[in-house]
């Protein structure tokens, strides 16, 4: 009983609870602040790239043949090393890089025969058609 009283008389439980809480809050807010500043710095250092991506995403109009041709040209550059295009991998990479505007491009390419499946069931580029589109634009 006297042990408890010793602690209570000195507001021991309150001090211990509040002390622990404040230390946690302090270090937690510090970790949040560190993350926040990391994001800000990362954004500022890559501002140019981010802004370019956002602008591009806002600007693309796939019904415009020139825009579509530009996208097809970019797609060809991305997949030039593949004979058969690993489409799921490409789309996953595009998502990780924030290039999700490629999704409708790929869909339109498949619809319009720029991207066709071969006899093994894999996607390949119809290079003649693609080059024709790019050449015309």
């Amino acid at each position, binding site marked *: 009983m006297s042990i408890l009283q*010793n*602690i209570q008389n000195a507001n021991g439980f309150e001090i*211990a609870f509040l002390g*622990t809480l*404040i*230390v946690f809050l302090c270090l937690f807010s*510090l*970790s949040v602040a560190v993350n926040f500043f990391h994001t800000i710095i990362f954004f500022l250092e890559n501002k140019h790239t981010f802004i370019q991506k956002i602008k591009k995403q806002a600007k693309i109009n796939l019904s415009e043949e020139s825009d579509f041709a530009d996208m097809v040209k970019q797609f060809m550059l991305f997949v030039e090393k593949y004979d058969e295009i690993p489409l799921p991998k490409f789309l996953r990479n595009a998502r990780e890089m924030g290039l999700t505007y490629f999704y409708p491009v790929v869909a339109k390419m498949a619809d319009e025969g720029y991207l066709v499946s071969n006899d093994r069931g894999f996607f390949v580029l119809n290079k003649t058609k693609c080059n024709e589109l790019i050449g015309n634009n």
Partner: protein
Amino acid sequence: MFNMLSDFFANTGFALLTPGYFVMILVGLFFIYLGIAKHYEPLLLVPIGFGILVGNVPVFQGFGLSIYEDTSVLHYLYFGVTKGIYPPLIFLGIGAMTDFSTLLSRPSLMLLGAAAQVGIFITFLSALALGFLPNEAASIGIIGGADGPTAIFLSSKLAPMLIGPIAIAAYSYMALVPIIQPPIMKLLTTRKERLIRMSEARKVTKKEKILFPIITFLLCCFVAPTSLPLIGMLCFGNLLKEALVTERLAKVARTSIIDIVTILLGLTVGASTQADVFLNAKSLIIFFLGAFSFCIATVSGVVFAKIMNLFLKDKINPLLGAAGVSAVPDSARVVHTVGQEEDRNNFLLMHAMAPNVSGVIGSAIGAGILWSFIK
């Protein structure tokens, strides 16, 4: 002639020697042995050990030799301890030599540094329960922060009469971290948990490193202004290091200043353990509570890491929790060693430095909070 010889003998240490002084001289020799032969924190234990020898050569009062006499040289040097001058200077040096990169690359590990500070507050409660006054209990509790300078700083503010035993307990247990922590860590973790490998830390930019001490200082000192002398100097030292343009100042802080202050602090704290002041039941209880606080701090760190794992996708090795006690870099080294006992290729040292350095910040904040509650 005979009388003169007799008077001379009466003034010698042999004539004044009591069992207490003898015991303390043995303690001092043991510290020196641990430092030199066992390499346990030699930079601290050798000065403290020799200081214990200096403080326990029995002398007559009035000669101005004892550290507790106003006119003695040691008393002037001890001024830096009693007025809390040395600890902030040591923090300046620690800041100038600490690389916070691992902490910045994974800020969530900071919470482990906070969890280990639970040891401070549980020990505070235990000391109150054992009948210590609140100011004494707070100074004893801070031993659980495993940070010698912080313990000395808080004791100098709240319980100057206990600086000796508290400092000796704090530094002794810091030196004994490789013995105290491993059994607790192994007891609380499974082999599978000890085998967890940490994912690679991301690269930290220079801007982040420069911003970190400024943000830490402002945030922590606005929340707990009483931690300003310690956190302020720690952050200032780190800013000098990271700014690169102040390399000369950083170099002085992490070499000359910290070395000089460590010598003065170790020697005078050791010398303050005069047997007639030091050897009493209170000191023994403080030693017991010190060991208890280290154990609790280790337990709370490891258990909190396991709790974090319940919510994390990318699991952390719970051994890292033990590094939350701020004995830098010993507890991080212990984590690495225990991890390698299970898997030679598991390198935990750099990851353990994150909770380790956040423990330094956490214990300084804890000290500030206790000071503000019990001023």
